[in-house]
């Protein structure tokens, strides 16, 4: 009998739910029964409520079992070898509506392939994009990115093509590609998942960018909270080098490009691109004033293309399938797909990649299935600690850059944190300031001092001390931080605060304004 091949994620979320223990138990049980077992550790499918989700191939379909535990090992082996029934069987994985209804351009391979196997990546369409790009000149590659309409997925939504053209046009003896993998926003894990589950997508995207702008060295600035991602990335990079996909002669093109992983040291602010560059130079991660733009004077003063992980992971599909194909997804000026991350108090948490234009209600209530506590959803915070808290009456808004901005919110990195009605938004406003106190780099006063004053002011409001006056102070303080801060840390901390006051005034002891007598 040939070896029994089973797939089990090495993804952090699966491991946190016990995947490594399941792997050990299965191996031990198989050894006891003298069954030859081939255990492939993959990325996660992104259906985290089913983790650890074990898969086995049957009649060309992957059949899933989840969430499994180490105690299930014997029963699982019975079920997989014979036709034994097992109550954790969830059927063909790709037919589960959560997965079936997605549009996976970025995460197409995640959860399917062995993350560090070059042959696996290539047999699933990998490197088709780079091969096309290598036949084009720099200007044509940048134009293709421009035409795709791709915008930076880190939060700001800046058109990627413009950035690429700027770096490509800069004259310098050395240029860099720097990947911002300092995914510190709570509620987001798309970067982590792709780096753990399909790192070659990032490597290929970086290589295309390097070829386009004339950079020979790339760095992945990875947060230290992601040790599994570090391990997988380093292994994948080493394998890419061995296969001639990185190095002095990328794919025989005569062009050089290589990548190094750099480990951050636990500072949220280093997700801000200029702070990140200082940190990558081995310095304090203090923010730099802009201009000069990093595209012209970035790492060590050289032209640097700084991109979020998901922005670069969108690139291979754009080249493989063409800019026009990519642009057809999405709405308005928000083209392509976005991996939304559904987190917090939610029944079916995980990653859902789909075109822009999906509504919050669909994501939270239909796809996410509402809260796991069974209580009504009170609010969703979109886009991390610097994102707005929106009330259910705005859940029919479509998720795209412009619509969100119109409502004082932002798509950010696509993270959605769901809260039930047990949450008090004054607590969350206070926390937004507390977090800024903790994580401010200290360079500019509005952020460093404003955050401390913010905590004090919220405390006075909730204690009922001169409530109206202090609400005015809070509003002034927020305006000052928005206008006077050097970067988004101080400049956007007011977003969660002001959205909390605006949409949930009752939590701040504000009585609804009396309606005019009818």
């Amino acid at each position, binding site marked *: 009998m040939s070896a029994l091949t089973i797939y089990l994620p090495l993804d*952090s*979320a699966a*491991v*946190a*739910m016990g995947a490594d223990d399941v792997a050990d138990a299965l191996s031990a049980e198989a050894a006891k029964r003298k069954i030859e077992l081939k255990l492939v550790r993959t990325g996660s499918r992104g259906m*985290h*409520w089913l*983790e650890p989700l074990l898969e086995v191939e049957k009649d060309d379909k992957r059949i899933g079992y989840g969430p499994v535990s180490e105690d299930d090992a014997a029963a699982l082996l019975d079920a997989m070898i014979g036709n034994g029934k097992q109550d954790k069987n969830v059927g063909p994985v790709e037919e589960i509506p959560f997965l079936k209804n997605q549009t996976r351009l970025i995460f197409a391979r995640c959860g399917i392939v062995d993350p560090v196997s070059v042959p696996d990546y290539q047999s699933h369409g990998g490197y088709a994009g780079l091969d096309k790009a290598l036949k084009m000149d720099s200007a044509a590659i940048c134009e293709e990115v421009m035409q795709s309409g791709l915008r930076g997925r880190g939060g700001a939504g800046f058109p990627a093509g413009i950035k690429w053209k700027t770096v490509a046009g800069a004259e310098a003896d050395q240029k860099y590609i720097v990947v911002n993998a300092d*995914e*510190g926003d*709570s*509620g*987001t*894990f798309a*970067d*982590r998942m792709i780096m753990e589950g399909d790192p070659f997508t990032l490597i290929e995207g970086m290589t295309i960018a390097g070829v386009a702008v004339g950079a020979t060295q790339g*760095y992945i600035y990875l947060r*230290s*909270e*992601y*040790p599994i991602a570090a391990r997988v990335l380093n292994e994948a990079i080493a394998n890419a080098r061995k296969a001639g996909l990185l190095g002095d002669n990328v794919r025989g093109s005569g062009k050089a490009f290589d990548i*190094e992983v*750099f*480990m*951050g*040291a*636990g*500072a*949220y602010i280093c997700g801000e691109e200029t702070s990140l560059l200082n*940190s*990558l*130079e*081995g*310095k*304090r*991660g*203090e923010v730099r004033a802009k201009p000069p733009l990093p595209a012209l004077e970035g790492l060590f003063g050289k032209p640097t293309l700084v991109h979020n992980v998901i922005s670069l992971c969108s690139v291979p599909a754009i080249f493989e399938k063409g800019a026009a194909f990519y642009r057809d997804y999405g709405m308005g000026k928000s083209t392509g797909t976005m991996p939304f*991350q*559904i*987190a*917090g*108090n*939610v029944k079916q*948490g*995980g*990653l859902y990649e789909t075109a822009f234009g999906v509504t919050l209600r669909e994501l939270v209530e239909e796809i996410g299935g509402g809260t*796991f506590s069974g209580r009504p959803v009170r609010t969703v915070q979109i886009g991390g*600690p610097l994102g707005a808290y929106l009330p259910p009456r705005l859940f029919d808004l479509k998720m795209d850059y412009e619509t969100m901005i119109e409502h004082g919110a932002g798509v950010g990195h696509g*993270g959605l*944190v*769901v*809260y*039930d009605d047990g*949450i008090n938004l004054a607590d*969350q406003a206070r*926390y937004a300031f507390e*977090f800024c106190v*903790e*994580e401010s*780099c200290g360079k500019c006063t509005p952020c460093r001092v404003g955050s401390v004053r913010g905590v004090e002011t919220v405390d006075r409001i909730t204690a009922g001390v001169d409530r109206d006056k202090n609400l005015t102070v809070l509003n002034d303080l927020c305006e000052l931080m928005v206008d006077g801060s050097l970067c988004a840390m101080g400049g956007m901390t007011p977003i969660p605060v002001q959205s909390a006051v605006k949409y949930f005034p009752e939590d701040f002891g504000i009585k609804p304004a009396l309606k005019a007598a009818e």
Partner: protein
Amino acid sequence: MTLSSLIEPFVGRTGGLISALHEVQRVHGFLPDDTEAEAARAFNLSRAEVKGVISFYHDFKRAPQGKTVVRLCAAEACQAAGGRDFIKSVEEKFGLKMGETSASKDLTLEPVYCLGLCSTAPAAMVDDRLVGMADTGKIEKALERAKKESAS
């Protein structure tokens, strides 16, 4: 290994100072007092510059930590999933506040701001062991395993 032999290999590398500090901490569990002077000498920086870097990053510890470090996520997604109560219950269970180390030096409790496990919140990390949908029971189990591993 001496401090300088840990630090030297990183001189001249991109962001070498931070990588060197990581390496010293990996070996010693914290940054011993001489790290500052040794790193300043190796990288040709002032001690003030090195101190500035060490003090900037949460990861770098200037005092020994407990034998086991339990990091509890204090960020929003975990708050939404009962994280505040979870943290309180862990603090009560071990008689420690966040940021404190037990008198026996066995255990340190520490906040962390996001482990990327937001869909299986609340999240925690016991040394290098990740814990999803965490409760005090799961933390105790992970601690037992950590103890067993260090004993074997």
